[in-house]
């Protein structure tokens, strides 16, 4: 086995140059993805901790955006629009990477 060189791929310890760039791009997207998916619910959770009824009423549920309660808009449209933009960002980053090569 020693005479054969094999590719080492490890998401957390990327070795070769191209893979490193791939991981950077995927990592960026996943970071934003996690912020959207779990950050926003966490924000709503933290803001609503003061509500004694446990329903999570807070400044976020009282505020209005385009007529929506803010917490509703953030999840129903904010997140999903964010996901589409993230996919776009991924394609753009990838094209850039390809152009560099």
């Amino acid at each position: 086995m020693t005479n054969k060189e094999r590719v080492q791929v490890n998401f957390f310890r990327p070795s070769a140059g191209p893979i490193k760039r791939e991981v950077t791009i995927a990592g960026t997207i996943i970071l934003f993805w996690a912020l959207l998916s779990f950050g926003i619910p966490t924000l709503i959770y933290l803001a609503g901790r003061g509500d004694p009824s446990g329903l999570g009423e807070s400044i976020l549920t009282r505020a209005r955006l385009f007529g929506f309660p803010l917490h509703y808009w953030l999840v129903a449209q904010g997140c999903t629009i964010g996901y589409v933009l993230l996919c776009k960002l991924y394609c753009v980053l990838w094209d850039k990477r390809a152009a560099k090569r």
Partner: protein
Amino acid sequence: MQLRPASFVLTGVLLLISAPVFAAGEEIYQVEPGFKLVPAIIMVTLLCVYIGVGFLSKVNETSGYWVAGRGIGKYGNGAAIASDWMSAASFMGVAGLLYLKGWFGLGYIIGWTGGYVLLLCLLAAQIAAAVTVIIAITYATAQFKGIGLICAWIFGMNYTASVFFAAGVVCAYMLISGMAGVTRNQQIQYVVLISAFIIPLWVLIRKAGGTGILPQLEYGSILSGLMQGKVAAGHLAAAEAEKVREAYLPWGGGNFYQFIALVFTLMVGTAGLPHIMIRFYTVKNEDVARKSVLWGLFFIGLLYWSSPVYAAMGRFWNPLGGQAVADVIILSAPEKAGLGIAFIGYLASGAMAAGLSTVAGLLVAGASAIAHDWYATVFKPDCTDRQALLVGRIFTALLCGIVILTALNPPALIAQIVAMAFAIAGNTIFPAVVLAVWYGKANKYGALAGMVWGLGMTLLAMAGWIAKIPFFGAEGLLPATSSALIVCPLAFLINIVVSNLTQSRVSDESADKMDNILRKLHNLPAKGEEKPAGEGAFGQ
């Protein structure tokens, strides 16, 4: 009544409200028997179009059967992804769900859209054959049942006859055309179903007092009004208003942990669904593959930005309806908007399109898992293209037969089993595929151990749910519908640990094979060519 397919899958996904729904579906189609001319004409015309398109895209090569000759562009493939997907869960179920669960139901929306981001940036790889077949059968059964109910409603046939009728249509155009025909049809089907879904909204929003320019933004004020107890009939009494307000507050439908667990499970499940994954291979090159996910997500978004409008409208006119109202939200909408029988026929055809396209996509995915991954790779590697194609067609028909048999006589718990499809995909396929792409040391033993763990835990959680063990219940730590938050990371861990332990047992040959695949996936030069000079040689 005619729009059952999505709702069947969704009820499964929901579980909380599953039991009475099957009965309801059958009741409804028995309520209005007889032949309906206008919807029948619309339906038959569309079916002819589908089969015609299938015939025109006739293929003779294996690759054409499986992956549409890789000649589908980003918009077309995006529409096909959306069409594949929407039939699976969304056509009418999501609106009913949002109606019942208020804000908490939004977890389904972000779960089902966010999964595509994961899919896009993490995956582009092989599918696990056995699990694919299980998921294909489970999903397709529910779709066939839905299609059967639609045909029964339109043509006045009995349920058995209409299942066979639907199966005949699916088989005919799939066997003739394979993936190319299916994909082209899915583009048509997307247009039919999204237009049938969105058009009534403009009429509805006007009836509710909006200006009717962009319903997806205008329902916000109606929603805010709902939270203060303002509905169509005036003001709600204090107790009722409180109930509606509760539903739209964050934790009225479940707590923070339940929300996160649900979202996570749906996301990894979405990213692991085999019939969505196979779409990655229906395009010319990776570039188009990436862009088609972008467009696919946008097309799916159109639906998900619209279904909460239906839910809010439902609350507006019927603030405290239960399951029965939620089930028919989409149906009652065109009626309420006064759009007439022809439009309802069109809507039924949209739902039918939704069911057909998913069944077709699934059967192709399932049969390709058997014929391509197993027959042509393991069983008979030296078979010709023609033989592989023949085996593929035989297995398509065979799978179709199995699905017909299950759909004719659905096991009592089919809704629950369908619900598990997401958890199964997220707990088994997703970790295995992600590691195969991103972790060079992952080997088949690790993948197997991880998948056995994922599948076992999902089934255990399911059994626990049925047996009403609180730990696996909706309020428990490991709800059957949301088990991936805990099970999926562990599946990753098990896969990594076992892969490392069994490293010495991997034969040189299979390690070489894996090496080649990884090079292809990550666009590295093949062995023997100039290797990159090491880290940072190309800059960041």
